Structures are given as structure tokens and as C-alpha cells.
């Protein structure tokens, strides 16, 4: 097996395996840490696909930001003394059927379709992406700042303890 294949299978295994834990684990904190592994796995796959900027962003934002936030969420919504970190799962059977069905359908789409073939050989992406942000994708780049303002303000508004009116 080539080096590339080996690395792929390792990261793929990490990603999917930890995703299983995220979805099926009965302990919330295990799910959270499994999600950490999933994010790292995905970052590894990005590197393999030549997306260096994206891999770094994934780690910085997903692991360093979103996951930390989720961990806060986990810890703040459980009583500390009575460490009740269980998380329940309902209707596993029917859920599994739907999920399996989806997997089959989407894999069929993936395998049956004749995808175009324009490969892009791995090359540093940071500069080209930067250029794209300031040229073709300028508007979404700027509009995203409004999104972040709203999210920032909104999250703070919702969580802040209300001053008695």
C-alpha cells in the first residue's frame, strides 16, 4: 500500500471511528472528546488533499474555537458535584435504518456519477485563497463580518443575565 493510501486510511479510520463515538456514546464528555479526534482527522484529510490553509483553519477554528465552546456547553449544563454526564439515545433502531439508507444512497451517488476530472495538484493555497477573498469572493468575505457581528451580539444578548427592567 502506498504511503498516501496508508495515511488516508489512518485518518479516515480516525474520523469515522470517532464519529461513531460522538453519535453513540452514552457519556457526553466522551462524545465531546471524540469530536475533537474527528476534527483532527478531518484536518489530516485536508492536508492530504493539499488544502493547507484549510487544515490550519480547521484546527484553529473548529478545535480551538467551536470545540472549546462545546466543552463549555457540556460543563456548564451539568451539576458539578453530581457528575451526571449521561446522554440518552432514543429510537436507535429507526434512526439506524434511516442513516444506513442515506449512506447507501449517497455512496451510490458518489460511485455512480461521472465526476469531472480536472485535478488540482497540491500546492500552497494560502496566497491564492487570499487573492480569491479579495477579488472574486469579496462580497461574501465582507458580508461575513455582518454575520459575525450579529452572532456575537446575539449570543451575548441571549446569555447575559437580564437587568431588572
Amino acid at each position, binding site marked *: 500500500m502506498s504511503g498516501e493510501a496508508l495515511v488516508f486510511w489512518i485518518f479516515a479510520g480516525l474520523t469515522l471511528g470517532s464519529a461513531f463515538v460522538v453519535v453513540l456514546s452514552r457519556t457526553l464528555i466522551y462524545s465531546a472528546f471524540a469530536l475533537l479526534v474527528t476534527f483532527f482527522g478531518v484536518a489530516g484529510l485536508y492536508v492530504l488533499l493539499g488544502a493547507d490553509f484549510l487544515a490550519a483553519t480547521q484546527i484553529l477554528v473548529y478545535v480551538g474555537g467551536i470545540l472549546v465552546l462545546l466543552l463549555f456547553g457540556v460543563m456548564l449544563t451539568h451539576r458539578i458535584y453530581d457528575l451526571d454526564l449521561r446522554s440518552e439515545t432514543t429510537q436507535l433502531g429507526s434512526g439506524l435504518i434511516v442513516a444506513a439508507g442515506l449512506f447507501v444512497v449517497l455512496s451510490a451517488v458518489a460511485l455512480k456519477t461521472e465526476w469531472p476530472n480536472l485535478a488540482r495538484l497540491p500546492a500552497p493555497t494560502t496566497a491564492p485563497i487570499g487573492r480569491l477573498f479579495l477579488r472574486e469572493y*469579496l462580497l461574501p468575505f465582507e458580508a461575513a463580518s455582518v454575520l459575525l457581528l450579529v452572532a456575537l451580539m446575539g449570543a451575548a444578548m441571549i446569555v447575559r443575565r437580564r437587568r431588572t427592567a
Partner: protein
Amino acid sequence: MSELTRSLNAFRPELALLVGLLLVVLADTFAGRGRQLATRLITVLSLTAAFGFAIELQAAGTRAPLFSGMLVIDPLGAALKLILVAAGLVTVLAFSFRNSRELAGLGHGELHTLVLALVFSCLLLAAASDVVMLYLALEMVSITSYVMVGYLKGDRLSNEASLKYILFGAASTGSMLYGLSLLYGLAGTTSLRGIQEYLAGGIPDANRFAVYAVTLLVLAGFGFKIAAVPFHFWCPDVYQGAPTPVTALLSVLPKAAGLAIALRFFYGAFSIPERGPWDLVGSIDWSALVMLVSVLTMTLGNVAALTQTNMKRLLAYSSIAHAGFLLMGIVALSENGARGLIVYLAAYLVMNLGAFLVVTLVHLHDGSFDLRDYPGLYRRAPLLTLAMAFFLLSLVGIPPFVGFLAKLYVFSAVIEQGQGVYATIAAVNAAVAAYYYFKILRVMIIDPGNEAKPALELELVDQLRLAALALANLAPLFFWDWIEGWARGALVLYAGR
């Protein structure tokens, strides 16, 4: 550089809103005691400016891509933007912290910022012509809505509704994203124009399956925004849990923007309007699927509304049903369908906001949203009841109200395309809807009860608001020609360079 300047020139409505947004944030921070007045004033001014620019844009009739193909400007888009800005403006003018009990004690600056951000995002969504812009704008509309709904944070009902809204929404848009990623893979580009070229060029049979999958996944995202079946589950809870002015806003803005982008996506990418009447050659027949969704939506909405006693929930289901009617404009694969959609949206704006205003005012004075507390309103608040009669009759679709005009347009568009069965089902639905709208009227006017309660003293400004909205529902009587002309002029959908 010149493309950027040209784009910015056509971007004036949005820029007005952005400037307003920033000024509101500043005013909220620095204005001290004049804060409430300042934020409201700035919001109204910026929405009015945006409205003016939007009118200018429609008059100019340009058709061009903007910002390197991220957005598109065309007469249809300009008409939709007009409706979106009008919705924001009318809502801000009709509702205030004085006439809505539910808004008491909340931050002026924050709410107004959110309103401006919502309208801005909706404008972006309605004009998006690139998949990246589409996704970003859709999520901007969604996230702003999530925040607005979660606003009344001390209220458990509101919070739970908010949670369901965000989780359901994130799941739907996540699925849509997966579909968009597949579309990118197939077409090799994020631009809708490029995707249209790809689909028009003929898809190999092996890829048809993928395109079907994409259509279904993308419909998940659009369906959620429009509250179409089966993505409507969040709607009644959210409409009930949110403060009524927010509900009023959400019943029009995201729906209109969602329909606008659905129109642009399906018409602009999945069919070829330039090749004669909405040519689907090379693409797949998605209209049958949308028809199914439309029928399910209007039926479920109407049937569920029949048994509701909470006015907000009833109006929520009524909104769901109207989404079904609005979809008729999209199913009728034609220019008349697009025209029907715009007229229906404009009508829907004044009918729905009016109804929500009445509900808010009753709650302000009586403290109830329950229909069972509505008897006797005819005696206690004749102006209010008269206005409500206008709104309800318009919602039913009776002439001479604007709701009738709207239904006329969409029905004729559908019939013209030979979809008789569909039109019949829709007509039956309209009749069913009439039942509960008339029921409300009957309760208000004829039913006995509440004799002991004093008359509802409406403030002058509220009376004016009711009168203005009620008259707006009679627009066809006065402005028939103008409406015709406006709708006709808005028909051009820009689908390429």
C-alpha cells in the same frame, strides 16, 4: 476596480442598511437618554433610504452581475428587494415598544440592529447568484432570525421555540450544504451561471441520480426557510414563542427571501428562461416535486389552522398555507408565475402584517392571544374589528381586496400552464381557509361575551397604523393600473451575462 464601483452603485439599498446598522450600534452605545428615539429614527431613515434606492433600481431596469458574479441585478430581483425592504419598513413603523407588551424591557438598539441585519441579509439572499453567496446569505438570514426569536430570554416558551428553531434549521441548511457541495463537484464551479451552463449542456445519464439527490437536499434548505412541508415543524412553535412583532417580521421576510432564492435557483440554474418560456431541456423536471410540496403545505397549513385557538399559532399555520399558495408561482414554470409570486408576496405583506398588528393590539389591551377572548370586540373596538375584517377578507382572497388579486395572478398562471388539477386542489384549499378566517370574524362580531369589558382605547397612532394597512389591502381598487404595470415591468429574470 471599475467593476467594483459599478457594483457598489447598484448596491445602494444594502449600503443604506449597513450604514444604518453601524449608526444604530453607535447610537445605542453613546446616545444616553435619547437612545430609544435615536435608534428608532435611524432605523426608519435607513429603511426609507433603502426603499428609495430600491425604487430607483427597479426604475433603472439594469440586468447585470455584480461583485464578480456573486450577486445579480435584474428587474425581478429589484421588485423582490422592494418588497423585502417594504416589509422591514412597514413592520418597524407598525410595531413599537409602546404597542407590543412582549417587547417590554428589551434593548432597543439590539432589536433594531437585528432588524436591519435581517433585511440586509434577505436582500443578499434574494440576489445571490453564486452558491457561496447563497449559503452565506441563507445562514445570515437564519442566524439573525434565531437570535431574534431567542430574544425574550426570560420566557421558557420562547427559549424552547428558539432552540428547536436553531437545531432544526442548522440540520436543514447542513443538508442543503451537502447538496450544494455535490453540485459544485458536478459543475466544477460555484457560480449559478456556470451551473446552469453545465445543466443545459446535457447531463449524462449516470449523473441524473446525483442531480436528483442535489435537488432534494437543496429543497431541504429552501423548504425550511419557507416553512414548507415537511420542513415546517418549527413554525407554529416559533411564531407562538417569539414576540409578535418579531413573528410578523419573520412571517414575511425570510419567507420572501427564501422564495426569491428558490425562484432564482430553480429558474435561473435549473432551467433556461432565455430559450423561450422556461425551458427545462437538459435539466430535470423539478416542478412536479415542488407541486407536491406546495399541495402538502397548503393542505396541512389549512387543516391545522382549523382547530387552533391561539391566534399566533393560527396565523402561523395560515402562513404555512400561504407558502403553499406562493409556491404556485414557482410551479407554473412561466413569467406569469413569477409575476404572480411578486404580487402575492406584496399582498401577503399587507394582509399578514395587518392581522399580526390586530393580534398585538388586542394583547396589549386585553392580555390575551386566545380566540376565545375575542368575542365582543366589535362593540369594544369597532375600528379594530373593521380593519381585521379587511385583513381577513384579503387573506381569504375575496375581491376587491389585494388578496384576491394575488390569488387571481397565481391561479391564472397555473391554469395557463394546463395544471388544472393542481389549481382545483388549491381552490379547495382556499375555501377551507375561508372557514377559519370567517370564524375569527364571526367570533369578533357576532359571538356573545365580554359585555362587561370596557371599550378598547386605541392610541391615535395605532388607529392610523390600522387604517393605513387596511387601506393598503384595498390597493387594487385605486391602483390597479399601476400594480399591473409594476408587475409586468418586473418580469425579467437575469440568468446570465
